[in-house]
């Protein structure tokens, strides 16, 4: 009984302290039922103009139809090999340095669209933000990602890059 009381005290103190500190924390967790949008806003200290735009599957497919698009898979190479959106290239965020020269040379005037698994994966957003900062002007994020792509009955490619 004494142990149970101690546990209740410890948890109560932790909840109070945690919630209080989170109210004033610069890196506070957003306590909401819905996950906040991953796009940076002014409060994150990022310039709004530098945020990549998130697009839904319909807009993504319109872009694919225009043929001037470079689809970038932001997941790990082994995940890419297991299946990816047809036509995509793999630029795992960790490998950005190795791949960037190739992309820079070939794709300056193309529309870049990044994706990963879909929420909560944010590698696509991180990669797109990085590409924007490298002065690629047209960068979109297909944030709903692979999960949404498959839900809509679309195919995957399995060949290596």
């Amino acid at each position, binding site marked *: 009984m*004494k*142990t*149970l*009381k*101690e*546990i209740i*005290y*410890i*948890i109560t*103190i*932790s*909840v109070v*302290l*945690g*919630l209080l*500190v*989170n109210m004033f*924390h610069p*890196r*506070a*967790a*957003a*306590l*909401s*039922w*819905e*996950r906040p949008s991953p796009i940076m806003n002014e409060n994150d200290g990022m310039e709004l103009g530098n945020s990549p735009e998130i697009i839904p599957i319909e807009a993504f497919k319109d872009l694919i139809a225009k043929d001037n698009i470079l689809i970038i898979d932001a997941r*790990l190479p082994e*995940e890419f090999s297991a299946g990816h959106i047809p036509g995509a290239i793999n630029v795992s965020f960790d490998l950005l340095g190795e791949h960037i020269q190739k992309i820079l040379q070939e794709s300056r005037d193309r529309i870049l669209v990044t994706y990963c698994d879909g929420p*909560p994966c*944010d590698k696509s957003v991180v990669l797109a933000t990085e590409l924007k900062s490298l002065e690629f002007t047209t960068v979109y994020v297909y944030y709903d990602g692979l999960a949404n792509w498959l839900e809509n009955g679309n195919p995957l490619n399995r060949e290596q890059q």
Partner: protein
Amino acid sequence: MNKWILLGIRLVLAAVFIYAGIGKILDPAGFTADIENYRLLPYFLSALTAVVLPWIEVICGILLITGKWISGASLIIIILNIVFIFAITSAILRGLDINCGCFSLSKEGSSVSIIRIAEDILFLGFAMAIFFSNRKSNL
């Protein structure tokens, strides 16, 4: 068990939990993302866990050092380590290659792996030794 060994175990476990807790307290948003990556909890519970859990770790660590409420603190650590072992094992079994979120202070995030499970089993053993020897001395 030798009381000096027990004291040593208590201090080591306390240091580990305070270190782990402070790292997460510094970045609740980052820790929320780490928990979400496990895909075990809905968003709200992930965020709430990220806000509260680090404080539980730190407070339990401080209690282990001061010698107050040892029974409650060590039982919480036992339960937490069982949960951690379950979460990491399930992430590995589902093939998730994610940051473990164990020690957010580490500069390089440590991925979920067998080593993380081994660590948690060791801490679980430490906490059980403290809990049961404390009960015995109170009887």
